[in-house]
């Protein structure tokens, strides 16, 4: 049987549905010793802002039950350095790998300015607009928790590009469908679900929070049930495709997200445990398809039997 792994995420053609989760894969270079980057469906870069951001104080991570907290705070060298170093490196070393740039900002204008600058770069395939980072004070999650804020950022970015615009949503909301609908209405071509859950960890021995910033974002297998639920809710309600993520460690996890309605999936925290995780997930999806006589991976999307 010939297995067709390709998926269409809106107008984006991906050779398989597996991409990297922003912030967990840098811009690929660090993983080049472990994975064949060009086997990825796409790379989603770490968050890029207009100016350099210093991120938060240390400690920035903490381990939790089947998960981890991070409060990196979107440390990044700014869009110019990103283009000069990361984008250039990717163009040279993985020319056939679609690059989805994850975009951060403190205001709708800042998001828009990053995109404006990236529009001049031919090697960008799409944008993922992060309105959901729990680790920065202004911007970040603030936009993602209100329909108005979410729509405002989306619309500002939409004006500037015809490239696929994916908006990354936060799970820390009462009604994820409502937020997703508002970014769809504002012109998004897809949504990414989920960013991290806001959490906290305490060291009883020292009586201190484990993170310098006290709270941080929870990722990993612990959050998979919440992620699957939101992917299912949103993909049932929206027309635009969903990029699903949250705790994907294996091919089977990825299949669950596809069944729930995701068109493609992102692997995040798993790459820390196992730097080859993205490859294992791709292989695992293929194995599942072979074992279950599925000829096109895209047939899995939304194929949950609910009766």
């Amino acid at each position, binding site marked *: 049987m010939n297995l067709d792994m390709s998926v269409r995420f809106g107008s984006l053609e991906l050779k398989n549905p597996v991409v990297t989760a922003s912030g967990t894969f840098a811009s690929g270079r*660090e993983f080049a010793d472990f994975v064949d980057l060009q086997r990825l469906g796409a790379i989603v870069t770490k968050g890029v802002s207009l100016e350099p951001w210093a991120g938060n104080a240390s400690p920035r991570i903490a381990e939790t039950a089947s998960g981890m907290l991070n409060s990196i705070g979107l440390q990044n060298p700014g869009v110019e350095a990103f283009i000069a170093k990361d984008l250039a490196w990717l163009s040279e070393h993985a020319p056939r790998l679609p690059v989805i740039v994850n975009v951060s900002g403190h205001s709708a204008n800042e998001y828009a300015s990053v995109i404006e600058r990236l529009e001049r770069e031919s090697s960008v395939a799409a944008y993922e607009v992060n309105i959901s980072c729990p680790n920065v004070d202004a911007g970040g999650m603030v936009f993602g928790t209100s329909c108005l804020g979410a729509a405002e950022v989306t619309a500002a970015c939409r004006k500037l590009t015809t490239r696929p615009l994916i908006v990354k949503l936060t799970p820390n909301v009462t009604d994820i469908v409502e937020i997703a609908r508002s970014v769809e209405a504002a012109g998004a071509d897809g949504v990414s679900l989920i960013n991290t859950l806001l959490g906290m960890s305490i060291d009883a021995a020292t009586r201190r929070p484990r993170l310098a910033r006290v709270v941080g974002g929870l990722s990993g297998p612990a959050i998979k049930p919440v992620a699957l639920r939101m992917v299912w809710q949103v993909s049932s309600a929206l027309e635009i495709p969903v990029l699903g993520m949250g705790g994907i460690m294996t091919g089977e996890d990825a299949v669950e997200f596809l069944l729930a309605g995701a068109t493609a999936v992102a692997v995040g925290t798993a790459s820390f445990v196992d730097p080859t995780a993205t490859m294992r997930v791709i292989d695992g999806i293929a194995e599942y398809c072979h074992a279950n006589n599925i000829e096109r991976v895209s047939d899995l999307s939304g194929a949950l039997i609910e009766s």
Partner: protein
Amino acid sequence: MCEQADTPASRPALERVRVLGNERIAPGVGILTLHAPRCASEVRPGQFVHLRVAEGRDFILRRPFSVHRAQDGALEILYQVLGSGTRAISLLEREQVLDLVGPLGRGWSAPAGLAHALIVTGGLGAAPLGMLAEELAAAGVAVTVAMGAPTQERLVARGLYEAVARRVVLATDDGSAGERGFVTAPVQRLLAEGSFDQMYVCGPEVMQRLVAGMAKEASVPCQVSLERLMACGIGACLSCVVSTRDGLKRACVEGPVFNAEDVLWDSSEVPPKH
């Protein structure tokens, strides 16, 4: 010699490794010996490995450990039991299989023409300096070592240093070996007496900072090895940053060894204490 450590020739890899031995050498301290032929042949002094303690879900994160020694395909890791991961390590048995990512990071480097090196260790800080001391001695460099620990039995790897160093000075908090007190006192004296070309320091961050200050006063170049919480260990996640004069650096790739004068001690953070 170890100039190459500056630009590690080797690339890291994911390697399945087998436990060759796991011995308790002091209260809460053990040596784990792993059959890890690839890493053992590539690792340079001061580099580390990122160990997966167990399959399953008990540990989402790997645990970073310096390589204490490497020979004949075997890696030695000197570990102290602090939390759940190191407790699990202390229970590993011969023939168990686990995996590591390594060798990782930038290790110690030796300036051209190095003649006399001063190595300063505090507690488990003795671990990442073992390979270095051996290589320096083998290359004919004179090595003086100042070791500190809470008690005599916590002066781990003392035998290794005594075997290769010209001189080993000891300090313990309780005076059970060497002089009573912190290692900083003998270091101060050694610096006053001797003429060192290079210092290498590892131990609690506060000790490293103090010793780095002494090195600066004595105008001896000094390298330190810093611990940070690490998720990826390969430079991707930015969880391990160290504040330096050139901005934030990742301890896992631009460290763990830094030139002491580059480190902005005030703003760097120690991992949570136990």
